[in-house]
């Protein structure tokens, strides 16, 4: 049995998709000769050549904008943004162009671009190598947003992203890039549809909703809670746009208590959207106020990173708050 981590899963998925489809090209900073700063594209330049694995100048607007043009003219670009925190020079291209091309051309000239971006804290990256800003993108109609937490989900969702004709912002949980290992499906058609959450652990007392790297923190917290007699159901959203409301509501109707945990700042975080959806549709099932546990509403710090990042104890406190109401 060979275990693969998330970086290897990205690499393997890109490789198989590029072998399968000659229109898939990669663009990004240092993705060719260097294999990417996280090595997610290692070896691909050698196999596919510089026309398909393009080392670009450092300009995210240039990378995303040219990828849009390539896509309109038949290619299927997968962009790597070195760190999610560097995506903002390309924000206009994403929000004004990529997200709206299908709509404003009434479907005639859609752009199919996947943007991969390592997100979240935990690598001693300070303000600009740590953020989790998925809501900038869920707030923009026309984009899909994927937030896997494991090697297998990364493979399944990235394959769906590459084959999906719509633009996808693909958040990779860089804190657990190499720490979570699984045996990957050998099937080169293995794909996970968007909008299907995964129940990681069944429980009856509290529903704990999460995505991306913090999923692993939440699993630990659920284990701690069970030792204190609280049965927690852990749901990994896997994609935020679209998001799987059915799985959430089914769980909430069972437990009546909800904790939403995300690494992104709490104010205007996606937890707010989920909380509102639950309130609109299942308020009668609630036995306690919904508890949101996000990153602090501050910029991401450097020296105090481990204090800032939600740990299992903080998630446990949130679980107890919901359970003890």
């Amino acid at each position, binding site marked *: 049995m060979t275990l693969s981590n998330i970086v290897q899963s990205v690499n393997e998925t890109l490789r198989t998709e590029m072998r399968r489809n000659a229109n898939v*090209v990669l663009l990004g900073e240092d993705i060719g000769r260097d294999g990417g700063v996280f090595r997610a594209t290692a070896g691909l330049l050698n196999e596919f050549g510089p*026309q398909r694995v393009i080392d*670009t*100048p450092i*300009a995210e*607007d*240039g990378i*995303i*904008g*040219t*990828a*849009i*043009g*390539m*896509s*309109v*003219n*038949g*290619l299927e670009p997968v962009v790597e943004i070195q760190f999610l925190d560097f995506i903002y*020079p390309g924000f*206009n*291209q994403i929000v*004004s*162009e990529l997200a*709206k*091309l*299908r*709509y*404003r*051309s*009434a*479907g*005639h*000239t*859609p752009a199919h671009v996947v943007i991969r971006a390592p997100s979240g804290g935990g690598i001693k990256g300070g303000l600009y190598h740590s953020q989790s800003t998925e809501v900038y993108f869920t707030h923009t*109609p*026309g984009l*899909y947003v994927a937030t896997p937490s494991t090697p297998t989900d990364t493979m399944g969702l990235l394959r769906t992203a590459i084959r*999906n*004709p*719509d633009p996808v912002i693909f958040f990779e949980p860089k804190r657990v890039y190499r720490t979570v290992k699984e045996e990957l499906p050998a099937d080169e058609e293995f794909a996970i549809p968007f*909008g299907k959450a995964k129940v990681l652990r069944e429980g009856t007392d509290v529903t704990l909703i999460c995505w991306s790297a913090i999923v692993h923190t939440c699993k630990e917290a659920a284990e701690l809670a069970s030792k204190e007699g609280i049965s927690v159901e852990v749901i990994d959203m896997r994609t935020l*746009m*679209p998001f799987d*409301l059915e799985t959430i509501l089914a769980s909430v109707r069972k437990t009546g208590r909800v904790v939403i945990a995300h690494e992104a700042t709490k104010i205007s975080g996606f937890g707010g959207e989920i909380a509102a959806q639950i309130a609109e549709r299942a308020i009668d099932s609630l036995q306690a106020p919904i508890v949101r546990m996000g990153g602090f509403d501050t910029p991401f710090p450097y020296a105090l990173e481990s204090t800032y990042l939600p740990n299992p104890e903080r998630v446990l406190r949130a679980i107890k708050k919901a359970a003890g109401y």
Partner: protein
Amino acid sequence: MLQVIRADGEFDPKVEPDLSHEDLLRMHRYMLTVRRFNEKGMSLQRQGRIGFFMESTGQEACQIGMSYCLGTNDWAFPSYRDPGTCLVRGVPLSALFDQIMGNSADENKGRNMPVHWGFAKWKMISMSSPIGSKLLHAVGVAYASKFRGEKSIALVSFGEGATSQGEFHAALNFAGVWKTPVVFFCENNQYAISLPTRRSTASESIAIKAEAYGFDGVQIDGNDVLAVYKATKSAIDKARSGGGPTLIEAVTYRMGGHSTSDDPSIYRSQEEVEMWRRRDPITRFTAYLMKKGALTEQASQKIMAEIDAEMARVVKEREAIPPPDPSTLFTEVYSEMPWHIREEAEEFMANEADRGQKGGE
């Protein structure tokens, strides 16, 4: 600065491009059509029959000269001041009116503000309003053509205002590094809304900026349709044969305001406008054609009458077309409608049906 026809219509036969009388007359007719289209668009907006308009009067030579060089497989990324590019590509006049009226016959379902051109069938990608962003799309399109070993090129036009954007820099930088078959056509019409060119850039010209990206920049008389044609043709030929990008700066003038929401008398003098009126691209080209014996005053008037009649007929016909159906609000956001949009659409349509039954509210 490249010039073929002087302001008085005199010309140097040694630099004339190789165009038949038929081509020259077709170009002339397109220029007149654009002039009338602009007048009609402004008038429709002033009468409240369309919501917004941006005229391109004074820039007809740019639009027609550059697009006349394109082959059917080439890609065009016109600016909002290039309705003429659409016409030369083959887009019918009726489709231009469908676009500015935003009616249900508009191929983009009336989703864009007037003069935001996009006609997929003619290889023109729909445009957004933030300027400068489409330059990168042209570079990417050109990359894909080159990637497949095709001969098609991309022509992108924009105002000098767009050259202040970071995306202008990124586009020229990427195009230079990748040597993509793309032509950057800057219509320097002297104003970015109210900001004069000298306050947009301290460079001695727009064209000179190309030097920093490792390819040629040329400055031409943008009110001389033959200079425009000649320079663009040569840039396209170069791109097609693997020579990489070119930046063309066509020096021209926006005779009207930026848009229907703007009063240019606040920021520029009447003397300046009058000076440019004497360099009018249509007057000049008409004089040239007459000097060459390709056109007579009588023929010119007949063409104008034909255009006016067609314009009136098309406006009447297209104004009768209803607006898009409300259900089109929700389609083509994604290739498949996700549940949350479906839910909104169904609720909205049920309410609409309700309203309909009550005879409207």
